[in-house]
């Protein structure tokens, strides 16, 4: 099992997002990773390629109801050694990020649409809770 050779900023962003999802017991698809990290599609997938090569990430296809012929989504999650490595690397390089993962609300990546989304979510929450 070759390890990760070079640890880049993008890879740390990606590991943080994956670890965050792991701590929330969620799976994320590639688009979710793009939104959470604010990275471009190619950067996210270059990172995923490397993590898969190092055998730190597992992928799973979305299960589709029969008769639905839209393309399936692929979900990614850290496996057990991936969690260990992500913890270790983030503790070394981004100690300030680690305690926030899995607790704080998802930090939306910069962008106008994101701001709208979080506003909308807050609004929906307020309506839902009867305020």
């Amino acid at each position, binding site marked *: 099992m070759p390890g990760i050779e070079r640890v880049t900023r993008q890879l740390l962003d990606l590991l943080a997002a994956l670890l965050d999802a792991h701590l929330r017991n969620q799976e994320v698809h*590639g*688009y979710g990773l793009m939104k959470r990290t604010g990275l471009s599609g190619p950067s996210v997938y270059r990172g995923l390629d490397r993590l898969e090569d190092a055998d730190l990430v597992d*992928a799973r296809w979305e299960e589709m109801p029969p008769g639905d012929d839209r*393309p399936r*989504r692929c979900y990614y999650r850290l496996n057990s050694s991936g969690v*260990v*490595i992500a913890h*270790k690397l983030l503790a070394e390089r981004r100690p300030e990020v680690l305690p926030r993962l899995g607790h704080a609300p998802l930090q939306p990546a910069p962008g106008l649409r994101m701001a709208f989304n979080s506003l909308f979510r807050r609004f929906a929450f307020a309506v839902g809770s009867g305020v």
Partner: protein
Amino acid sequence: VIIEIGITVVATLLVNEMTDISPWIAIEFARWAAKRIYANDKKRMARRAEDWESHIRNSLPTNLSKLCFGLSLGCAATACMALRQVSPARSALRKASPVRPTPRKALLMALVMLSQGRCYWPDCVEPCLVTVDGASVLNLQVAHICAIGTGGPRYDPSMLDLDRTAFSNLILLCAAHHVAVDRDLQSRYSATTLRKWKSDREG
């Protein structure tokens, strides 16, 4: 005035037509990019192509963002192809890289400096460097305190690969003592012993 209105209508229709075909363009770009980027890995090529198509069909909200996503993948694929053109030897080398990574030069130099010029085995006088044809050559072998491969001597499953190849896990031994230390799996020379040799020598 009539001509102006006409131009506006035609332009709007054109833009609408463009954005109607833009998801299709994006998907074509994504498929093409997957083929180029993962030329050596057919399985991953198919996986990524479907994955990207699902983003374009299900996730990306506007036609413009779909087009941008497709174009960015196309750019990445072009860059990938260009790199392959420039350095076929390098990518081949990376593909055939040995399973056991060799210790980096800086690590070796640090070991040589701190070894006090001798094999790390206590009282061994085998010199670290010998002069051959006027040049210094490393006379000792790099030994792992905890083995790098599964099931090797003193292999520690809880260790990370990063730590297995780290300075803290390496010592220099002469050929005879390297054999002695790694002779059998229930080695008489435990990781603790070797770490003590290392700390005693390096100070």
